């Protein structure tokens, strides 16, 4: 009896482990961010379409969203409507990080599709994107009032993801930016 019990137990264990693995397969296609729970990388970059500079440090004390995009990225077009909705809801400030793009093309894109961003920082050389561990566009980060990265979403945003993963992580009173 015991000589069958042991292999059967091992087999059952194997089935359980593999089953959990298969169940969780979809979330494995997204690489988790190494920045969660850490300080958002500081940066100072030129503002799109202006001579000003934007410093991430100026967001201290407020929750905000950083959205990485480029006009060369088709999925960014797909999430644009959601970003516009977010902007209209005025839930959180949305900072755009225009990644390895042309200023002219980016300005034209915002003019044609509408501008959901409070400010767009231009990362033409992709250095800031590396500091944020960005590996594709679009990516969207949620940063809390202390400047800590709370969440990252990889791929186009949709309203469900927005309310579940972003709004769901906000403390009461954070909506509206608290300024």
């Amino acid at each position, binding site marked *: 009896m015991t000589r069958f019990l042991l292999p059967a137990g091992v087999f059952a264990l194997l089935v359980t482990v593999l089953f959990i693995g298969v169940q969780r397969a979809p979330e494995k296609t997204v*690489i988790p*961010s*190494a920045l969660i729970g850490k300080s958002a990388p500081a940066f100072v970059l030129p503002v799109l379409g202006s001579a000003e500079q934007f410093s991430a440090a100026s967001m201290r004390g407020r929750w905000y969203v950083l959205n990485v995009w480029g006009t060369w990225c088709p999925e960014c077009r797909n999430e644009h409507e959601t970003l516009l909705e977010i902007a209209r809801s005025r839930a959180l400030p949305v900072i755009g990080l225009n990644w*390895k793009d042309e200023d002219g093309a980016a300005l034209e894109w915002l003019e044609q599709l509408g501008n959901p961003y409070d400010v767009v920082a231009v990362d033409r050389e*992709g250095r800031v994107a*590396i500091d*944020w*561990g960005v*590996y*594709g566009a679009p990516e969207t980060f949620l940063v809390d009032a202390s400047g800590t990265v709370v969440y990252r979403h990889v791929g186009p945003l949709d309203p469900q993801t927005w309310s579940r993963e972003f709004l769901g992580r906000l403390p009461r009173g954070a909506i509206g930016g608290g300024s």
Partner: protein
Amino acid sequence: MVVAWLLIAVPRALAIDPIELEEPALQERYRDLTHELRCMQCQNQSIADSPVGLAGDLRREVRELLLAGKTDAEIRNHMRERYGDFILFRPQFSSRNAWLWLTPLLLLLIGLGAAVRVIRRRAALAPTDHSLHDEPSGDSAPPDGSAS
């Protein structure tokens, strides 16, 4: 002569990364490092082999860190802080992946234990077999005959 030159020159010109650092020692470290960092976009290639833009940016980052005098470990750590363990083709041992490193060892120990048990059992059987062979016509009862 021209053919020989082409054989050498063409692969270099066609390489994904034609850049060479001036100092040979740095170039060697650069080559090794870029081969063991994963291109996060095309995940089964190293950043040395990938033509995508991000891989080029990461190579530039490695180059700049090398020229700034960082050690290989510091450069690996720099990448790991940003992209996580996944960017390293040879991930380091950490509390999070300890079970992954130790499971094979555990399985090997279980296997060895099982093998030892089987061998011991077989070894215990052997003398009985041997004695039966020696006296095929012996009328003495088997050693455990009286017990049953």
